[in-house]
């Protein structure tokens, strides 16, 4: 039996967390949406995500301290971020937009305006006060060990203990990610929303022009 340990992410995990965010955004073999939106290559985008994680802004997914890391035999093997949506009254999308705007600057943001609008067509609103799960990622070599469900359960356990008022957990994924949806269904999540975009730019930005939200009562 391989030994699994789960712990809060630390600064030394930044590289792994960047890998997790990029892999989750690509959702298999699709484009890296952040890079496609801002017209950056993957290396530039990785550096930008690293900077974003260094800011450690709570209340949105690109925040190092929101990540739990699962280690298998002492090696980081899986990661997942979680936070309570708009706990301080500010939606996660707004915090993340402020962060990315700050990092890429006004010119890059302006050039990305059409692509940002396209992606917004697929945006599903997160419920205020609900636990959110994002960037759920297991390194390919470590798949099949049930690490993602363990990470999710650990996050939910922490939310139940620290935020008993939280009644539900939500996650958003690409509609074509059937394998992940199957895993989430097995641990009690059900689809509650779907949103598709028709913007012609979407095919080059996202791995699928439709997203679903799944929810679990706590």
């Amino acid at each position, binding site marked *: 039996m391989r030994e699994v340990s789960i712990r809060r992410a630390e600064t030394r995990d930044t590289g792994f967390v960047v890998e997790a965010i990029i892999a989750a955004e690509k959702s298999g073999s699709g484009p890296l949406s952040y890079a496609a939106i801002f017209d950056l290559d993957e290396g530039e985008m990785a550096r930008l995500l690293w900077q974003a994680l260094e800011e450690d*802004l709570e209340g949105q997914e690109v925040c190092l301290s929101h990540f739990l890391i699962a280690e298998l035999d002492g090696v980081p093997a899986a990661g997942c971020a979680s936070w309570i949506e708009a706990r*301080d009254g500010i*939606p996660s999308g707004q915090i993340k937009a*402020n*962060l990315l*705007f*700050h990092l890429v600057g006004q010119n890059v943001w302006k050039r990305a305006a059409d692509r940002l609008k396209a992606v*917004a067509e697929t945006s599903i609103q997160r419920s205020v006060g609900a636990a959110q799960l994002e960037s759920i990622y297991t390194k390919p070599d470590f798949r099949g060990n049930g690490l993602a469900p363990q990470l999710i359960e650990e996050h939910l356990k922490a939310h139940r203990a620290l935020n008993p008022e939280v009644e539900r957990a939500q996650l958003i994924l690409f509609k074509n990610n059937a394998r992940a949806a199957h895993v989430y269904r097995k641990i009690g999540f059900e689809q509650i929303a779907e949103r598709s975009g028709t913007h012609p730019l979407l095919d080059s930005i996202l791995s699928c022009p439709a997203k679903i939200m799944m929810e679990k009562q706590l």
Partner: protein
Amino acid sequence: MQEIISRLDGIFRRVFEDDSIKVRSEMTANDVDRWDSLSHIAMITAVEKEFGIKFKLKELVTMKNVGDLIRLIEIKTSS
């Protein structure tokens, strides 16, 4: 403060495409139909241009409502 509100009225009406918007201190993104993460950045850049100021990231991510925005504008334009 009234002058700031009146200038914000113009910005909000233009950015959020609603001529009936009247800015209030307690107003948040939930109160304005077209206030999403993208239009939020458009609003912030329009406010910076209008008042000749620049917000820091930490200021932006702690701005909970329009009242916070007004207070920040007051501080930055008076210094």
